């Protein structure tokens, strides 16, 4: 490759054709990259002869298109394809290129620059276009051979060599640190080159700066589908290896073997040269609207600059900057005003687009479209009738259109309703009424893709009397699966019936058109594994749900995937998140578990000590026969738990949607009426059931005889011991609407009582709606149904029981112990301003 030679010697040869007697002003450019050369191009276009130009480049190449390094790595392009200006361009324009010889110093007093090879060149105007330096995270092993960044052609060559070497060994391992734009493009290229790639990303979602969580989640699933391993929330501790890279160790101890590590965690403006020359530098080299630095004869452009507080890491702004710069150099006055940017991921088959501010919020309208069957997610954010941001995944065809509307701040109120369907739809003339659009469809047009139902069939079933969405779903199955056609079906209903549709059963919340039951059923049917997945597949209409649906989804997933689902703390109500009961003054109360209501001196002493030590203003015996310590401050909670733990006590869960307590009476051990050991049974039941998450709070009691001192007939599950065995009662509750239990059945052994209890709880856990207690649930489904499932169906009962016990094998972990041991301890502490009263920045 003839353009690739340029060592310093060769460059000095070139100096000969540089007109040394040239009397024109001398413009010296440091940086032969995208911005430096573009600036020269813009300048030449305005005034070809005004300046004599010399360009220094650290890389031994002519000017190439850096953003195309990704396709080169992926094998979609060759280096020759990405050259912007070849050797001829430099020659034809009389530009001297000194490539492969970085500038090492600027002397502003003498107006010279000096290069690594020792060459000193004078300038009249100096342009700094040094781009960015990749950010290298300061972990041990970062300097090992085989650890590289992704910035220039040399990095690509190193990656290609590693892939080649790996091939010989049957496929090498690569780790990419950083799941942003650059890291994912590197990972894609390396995968195509046959390497086994693991992406390590610190944040919870990929490309979190460009994408919202939903799009990030889709991207992650797609990449995993392509065989990459994506570790989010993963923190690199060390790169290890003896003499060269052998792998990466994470903070949590996991080790990932690798012969190549690509760090793509970010870039920072390359400002060292400018800083040493005494130019004003903040995050980047400070420039005015014509790219002039604090020295009027020194300009700077590209990623190395900071304009109006902003630094940019994309090319589009460079073009704007270069225009203003060239204008300034040729005495025209336009002025750069900053740029709005958009990004796309250059990974074949994965269409991802993002622009502007898509974070939504106050005064913003979030328009969300999720089309699960096509794998499409679109979100357009509108504020004051103007588009302010957009995220598109899966179908980015309209990205340019949205971006254009955004940049031009166009009023979109007219097309608001159809905006999300894209340009073709929104500007598709007159027929803007969605009902008219449905009415115009032919009879064989498909309405429901999942069940293959055509418009004619839906209309026929409405005409035969299915007058609600639910009835349609039940009759012809349209909209009964993924639900994405719900809107169409509703429109058809109102077209056919000539009126507004009678609304179906209550949806889970306003973020979805699905009911609780639909959601539960689909989670299991489609084997969904995370909240974002549910929201995508079920077409949630909000970006991250609300305080009604998030706790419900968290519970449904937890119940469906015991031991597997990763609990989402931020989707839990405060009591569950803090493992204590929030009180009206914002302090907490703590209720240690006392099995079956029993206690002993050691526990009582520990409780008394805690009360004194943390100045708890009150201790109270609860309705469930436990001691409740009131008035504990959030920051003291971990210490309180640690003290109670030390005395052998665990969390009472007296605050969660979970098993609260098992109330007992004294039973046959002491009471003259007692028929069975109700206390002992209560302890056994509590040992079996504690820690289980439920749709709502759950209370149990065991009484030793029909006198029922433990009030077992107003509990979710109650046992009344009788001479011949145990009466099992269900669905009672002492809340606002007091409800006495229904008798479920009578059993003769203690073990049976335990087994039926487990089966009953599991049925309730699997089938009740979130925040529905057993009483309304049983009234809804009927006690006969529960009897059928628990009493009559022996195999079914056994299956329920074993599912419950399986799930319990994961959930009987004492959250107090974990917190006291330091888990999430920072959440209990106040943020500590490092400089309590010192102003660190002034405006």
């Amino acid at each position, binding site marked *: 490759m003839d353009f690739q030679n340029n060592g310093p010697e060769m460059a000095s040869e070139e100096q000969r054709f540089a007109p040394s007697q040239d009397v024109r002003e001398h413009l010296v450019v440091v940086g032969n990259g995208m911005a430096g050369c573009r600036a020269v191009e813009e300048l030449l276009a305005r005034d070809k002869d005004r300046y004599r130009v010399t360009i220094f480049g650290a890389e031994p190449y002519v000017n190439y298109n850096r953003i195309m390094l990704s396709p080169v790595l992926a094998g979609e392009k060759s280096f020759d394809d990405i050259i912007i200006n070849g050797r001829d361009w430099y020659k034809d324009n009389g530009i001297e290129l000194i490539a492969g010889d970085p500038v090492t110093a600027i002397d502003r007093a003498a107006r010279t620059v000096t290069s690594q090879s020792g060459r000193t060149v004078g300038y009249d105007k100096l342009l700094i276009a040094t781009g960015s330096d990749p950010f290298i995270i300061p972990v041990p092993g970062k300097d090992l051979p085989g650890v590289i960044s992704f910035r220039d052609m040399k990095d690509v060559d190193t990656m290609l060599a590693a892939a080649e070497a790996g091939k010989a060994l049957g496929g090498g391992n690569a780790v990419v640190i950083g799941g942003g734009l650059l890291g994912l493009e590197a990972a894609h290229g390396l995968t195509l080159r046959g390497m086994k790639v693991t992406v390590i990303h610190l944040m*919870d979602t990929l490309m*979190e700066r460009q994408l*919202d*969580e939903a799009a990030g989640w889709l991207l992650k699933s797609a990449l995993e589908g392509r065989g990459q391993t994506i570790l989010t929330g993963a923190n690199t501790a060390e790169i290890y290896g003896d003499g060269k890279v052998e792998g990466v160790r994470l903070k949590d101890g996991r080790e990932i073997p690798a012969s190549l590590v690509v760090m793509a965690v970010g870039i920072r403006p390359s400002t060292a040269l400018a800083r040493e020359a005494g130019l004003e530098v903040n*995050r980047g080299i400070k420039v005015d609207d014509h790219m002039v630095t604090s020295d009027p004869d020194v300009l700077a452009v590209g990623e190395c600059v900071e304009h109006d507080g902003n630094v940019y890491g994309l090319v589009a702004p460079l073009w704007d900057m270069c225009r203003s710069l060239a204008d300034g150099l040729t005495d025209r006055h336009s002025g750069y005003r900053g740029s709005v940017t958009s990004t796309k991921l250059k990974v074949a088959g994965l269409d991802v687009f993002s622009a502007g501010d*898509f*974070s*939504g*919020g*106050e*005064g*913003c309208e*979030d328009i969300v479209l999720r089309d699960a069957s096509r794998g499409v997610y679109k979100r357009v954010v509108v504020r004051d009738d103007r588009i302010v941001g957009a995220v598109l995944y899966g179908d980015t065809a309209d990205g340019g259109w949205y971006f254009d509307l955004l940049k031009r701040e166009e009023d979109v109120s007219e097309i608001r309703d159809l905006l999300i369907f894209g340009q073709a739809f929104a500007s598709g003339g007159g027929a803007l009424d969605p009902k008219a659009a449905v009415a115009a469809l032919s009879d064989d047009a498909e309405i429901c893709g999942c069940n293959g139902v055509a418009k004619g069939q839906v209309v026929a079933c409405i005409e035969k009397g299915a007058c609600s969405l639910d009835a349609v779903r039940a009759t012809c199955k349209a909209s009964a699966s993924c639900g994405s056609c719900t809107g169409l079906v509703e429109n058809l209903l109102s077209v056919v019936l000539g009126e507004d549709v009678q609304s179906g059963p209550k949806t889970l919340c306003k973020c979805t058109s699905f009911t609780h039951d639909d959601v539960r059923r689909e989670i299991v049917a489609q084997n969904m594994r995370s909240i974002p997945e549910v929201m995508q597949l079920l077409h949630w209409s*909000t*970006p*991250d*749900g*609300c*305080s009604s649906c*998030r*706790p419900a989804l968290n519970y449904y997933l937890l119940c469906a995937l015991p031991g597997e689902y990763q609990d989402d*703390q*931020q*989707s*839990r*109500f*405060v009591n569950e*998140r*803090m493992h204590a009961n*929030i009180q*009206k*003054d*914002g302090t907490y109360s703590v209720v240690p578990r006392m099995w079956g209501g029993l206690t002993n001196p050691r526990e009582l002493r520990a409780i008394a000590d805690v009360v004194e030590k943390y100045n708890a203003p009150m201790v109270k015996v609860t309705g469930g026969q436990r001691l409740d310590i009131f008035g504990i401050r*959030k920051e003291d909670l971990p210490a309180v738990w640690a003290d109670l733990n030390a005395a052998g006590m665990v969390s009472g869960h007296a605050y969660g949607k979970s098993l609260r307590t098992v109330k007992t009476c004294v039973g046959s051990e002491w009471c003259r009426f007692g028929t069975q050991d109700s206390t002992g049974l209560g302890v056994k039941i509590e040992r079996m059931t504690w820690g289980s998450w439920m749709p709502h709070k759950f209370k149990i009691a065991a009484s030793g005889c029909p006198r029922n001192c433990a009030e077992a007939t107003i509990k979710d599950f109650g046992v009344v011991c009788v001479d011949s065995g145990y009466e099992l009662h269900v669905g009672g509750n002492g809340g606002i609407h007091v409800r006495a239990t229904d008798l479920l059945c009578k059993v003769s052994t203690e073990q049976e009582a335990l087994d039926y209890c487990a089966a009953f709880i599991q049925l309730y856990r699997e089938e009740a709606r979130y925040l529905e207690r057993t009483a309304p649930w049983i009234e809804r489904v009927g006690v006969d149904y529960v009897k059928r499932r628990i009493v009559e169906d022996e195999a079914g009962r056994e299956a329920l029981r074993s599912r419950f016990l399986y799930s319990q094998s994961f959930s009987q972990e004492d959250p107090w112990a974990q917190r006291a041991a330091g888990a999430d301890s*920072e*959440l209990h*502490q*106040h*943020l*500590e*301003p*490092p*400089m*309590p*009263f*010192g*102003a*660190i*920045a*002034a*405006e």
Partner: protein
Amino acid sequence: MTDWIDIGTLADIPQRGARTVRIAGQKEIAVFRTGDDHVFALVNECPHKKGPLSQGIVHGHSVACPLHNWNIALKTGEAQGNDEGCTPTVAVKQEGGRILIARPASLKAAA
């Protein structure tokens, strides 16, 4: 002129969660981080009955109060829907990876 106080980094606050800051002589401040990594700061008191907003569920750019589930807009501090009331907001910004909150006005004189 605003004085800014550095209170930490984004990573110090759980996504869709909050942490609190105490400044002598001031009401406790709740600093929220949303799902899309925006940061907001409010006095840590619900306009209804002073519930600690920092302990609520954060969704979109709102927080649901842990006591009676009022929804408060993080940007304006205003109660949403049919509820009325407003929690004072505190100016906050992210700069160079740090989170800065505006020093409350009454402290300026004291400092």
